[in-house]
């Protein structure tokens, strides 16, 4: 299949190059797709632009990797030579594999992160609405989406947060089940506390309260999350009402000690509370974690969990690759069969023509044939041809699977004087050098 995947990503190019190539969504994106199709002489094209990658997926028999790279450089106003230094190129099976792996988040910086799937779906929709999505690329993408879904459900690649705030939200889920309706208390107004609050809010926390020594900063943070600000003196009362506490003050000593938490827990009737201490030095006294119903995690605990999760995801990547291989094989089988289609049609038509001609000759020699007899004799040709070609065509389709035996396609072409399948070799012929074959090769 004449499939190409070219572009730059976090493995091949620095951010300075990636940001020059980045394309925003909207009219600019659609315009770029139209220009890419025209400049690169491709039938189908899709442009994926995220903060970590700018990639072009295309299909066409009249193009080449060099043309594609030049086209991308041209539409982004970059010298092609500058782009070639950092551009990767994948073709045919490697291109399909790359698309599947990117969609399944196996090529992301944080393996298993969910955002890339949404971004690719957006790019797919954009290509669809711009009219640059066709049968081959469309099939490849829809099968890649299916593969990504399988990877997420059949492996544990997406389990566990991959950042401190997401781990904190995950832990809160383990303690409370769900965060919908929960109340969060932010003690201090540091940046990490703000980031964690963003995650908590996204996870469904109903109300956020802020307690801070500096009223102005506290009120600003509370306003950002449509929460309430409380003075420092009201900390203990707010601890009684909160489910999740994020502490990030700059205090040199603990601001929540054991005695306070014992009083708080009595007042809470020992309802569980999750406390995230991201301050250094710590804001919550060490012994507080031993109080029944209190779960305290400091920044080291959270980072340790992040590391464990990332290791776990890497370990799951091999299993995910195996799952993905099945989907890639299915796509390649579909594309091979599709490529054989015109040849099979031609072969069948030739046989049908011969059969029809011979039957007509016979019918001409038999006098007084009824209409019924004519219909019977006419139907004989397609029936014989179908039976005759069934096994050869089955074998022909099977022979296109790599490693399944001798290539029968060439033999059939030679034997019956047929044309080559449409989507096979032109790309290889168009490739001037062998240096486009592998990912990350310099162009």
């Amino acid at each position, binding site marked *: 299949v004449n499939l190409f995947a070219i572009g730059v990503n976090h493995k091949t190019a620095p951010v300075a190059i990636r940001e020059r190539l980045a394309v925003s969504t909207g009219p600019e994106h659609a315009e770029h797709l139209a220009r890419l199709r025209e400049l690169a002489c491709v039938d189908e094209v899709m442009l994926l632009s995220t903060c970590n990658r700018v990639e072009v997926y295309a299909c066409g028999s009249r193009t080449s990797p060099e043309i594609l790279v030049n086209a991308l450089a041209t539409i982004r106003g970059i010298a092609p030579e500058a782009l070639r230094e950092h551009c990767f190129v994948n073709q045919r099976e490697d291109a399909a594999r790359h698309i599947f792996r990117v969609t399944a988040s196996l090529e992301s910086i944080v393996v298993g992160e969910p955002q890339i799937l949404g971004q690719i779906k957006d790019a797919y929709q954009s290509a669809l609405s711009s009219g640059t999505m066709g049968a081959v690329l469309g099939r490849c993408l829809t099968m890649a989406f299916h593969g990504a879904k399988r990877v997420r459900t059949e492996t544990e690649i997406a*389990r566990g947060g991959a950042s401190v705030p997401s781990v904190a939200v995950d832990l809160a889920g*383990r303690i*409370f*089940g769900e965060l919908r309706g929960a109340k969060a208390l932010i003690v201090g107004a540091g940046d990490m506390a703000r980031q964690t609050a963003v995650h908590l809010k996204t996870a469904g926390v109903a109300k956020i309260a802020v307690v801070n020594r500096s009223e102005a900063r506290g009120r600003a943070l509370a306003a950002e999350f449509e929460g309430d600000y409380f003075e420092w003196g009201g900390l203990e009362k707010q601890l009684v009402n909160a489910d999740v506490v994020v502490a990030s003050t700059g205090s040199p000593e603990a601001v929540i000690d054991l005695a306070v938490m014992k009083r708080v827990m009595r007042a809470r009737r*020992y309802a569980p509370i999750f406390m995230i201490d991201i301050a250094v030095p710590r804001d919550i006294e060490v012994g507080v974690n031993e109080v029944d119903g209190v779960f305290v*995690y400091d920044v080291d605990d959270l980072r*340790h969990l992040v590391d464990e999760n990332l290791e776990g995801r890497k370990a799951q990547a091999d299993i995910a690759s195996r799952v993905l291989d099945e989907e890639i094989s299915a796509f390649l089988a579909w594309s091979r069969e599709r490529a054989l289609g015109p040849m099979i049609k031609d072969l069948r038509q030739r046989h049908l023509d011969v059969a029809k001609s011979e039957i007509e000759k016979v019918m001409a020699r038999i006098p007084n044939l009824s209409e019924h007899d004519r219909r019977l004799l006419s139907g004989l040709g397609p029936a014989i041809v179908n039976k005759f070609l069934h096994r050869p065509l089955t074998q022909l389709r099977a022979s296109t699977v790599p490693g399944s035996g001798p290539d029968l396609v060439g033999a059939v072409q030679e034997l019956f004087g047929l044309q080559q399948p449409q989507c096979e070799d032109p790309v290889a012929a168009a490739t001037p050098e062998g240096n486009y074959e592998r990912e990350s090769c310099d162009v």
Partner: protein
Amino acid sequence: MLVLFVLAALAYVGAAFGSLLAVLGDDAKAPRWPLHALLVAAIFHLGAIGSQCLDGAHPFRSIQMTLSAVAWFVVVGYLGLVRGRRPLRELGAMLAPTALVAMAVGFVAHADVVPNPELSPMLVRAHVVFASLGVAGFVLAAGVAAVYLALEHRLRHKEVPRGMQGLSVRGLDQLHNRLVVAATPVFALAMAFGAVALTQAGGLEMLQTRALELVAGFVAFSANLTSLVGRAIIGLRGRKAAILTLLAFFATLLIIVSYGVRS
């Protein structure tokens, strides 16, 4: 008399269920029917005491019978207290199963005043049914409590178990508590029916041969009642409640093993 006892026991169990559910539901406007059930139970309880009295067993003849009579007075006092006031649901939740056990103790204290031996097989069957339900509830509650303790221990030691997706400490705590709420009154009823059936079958001597089961049953009942009442009054939950549930489970296990060895 036995019929009055059975009716009183069933009404006490109903009142216990209602009160416990009202306490745990945190609903400001609790239903009144648990109080009505408690009133019905008190009436049948009085009937049972009166019937014993007519058979020659004075309510204050022994400590056990006094216990039953005192329980009745406390129930009536409670009903008088809550009339037109805050329902004191926590107290009601504790009182109903406790009065049931006290009534059973008073009832079996004098084998000579436990007539109707023809009802004995029915009581035994009821005992077996309620005991099975109660034990099943305790086993489930103990299982959930054990999972709770495991999850809580791991979270406290900064581990996030990969194989426990969808479980939360709060959810497990609530589930185990609800199972205890369901099992405790049923188990109390089974204990009461079992004790009466034993007394009918072989008098107090027979009851004494089952001392281990009785003590274990009382421990299981007390542990669960402490857990429930503790939660209602001081908010006892989490690790301590789970440990109490496990204690009740092991006491129940002892009863089952004892029955197994005897049979």
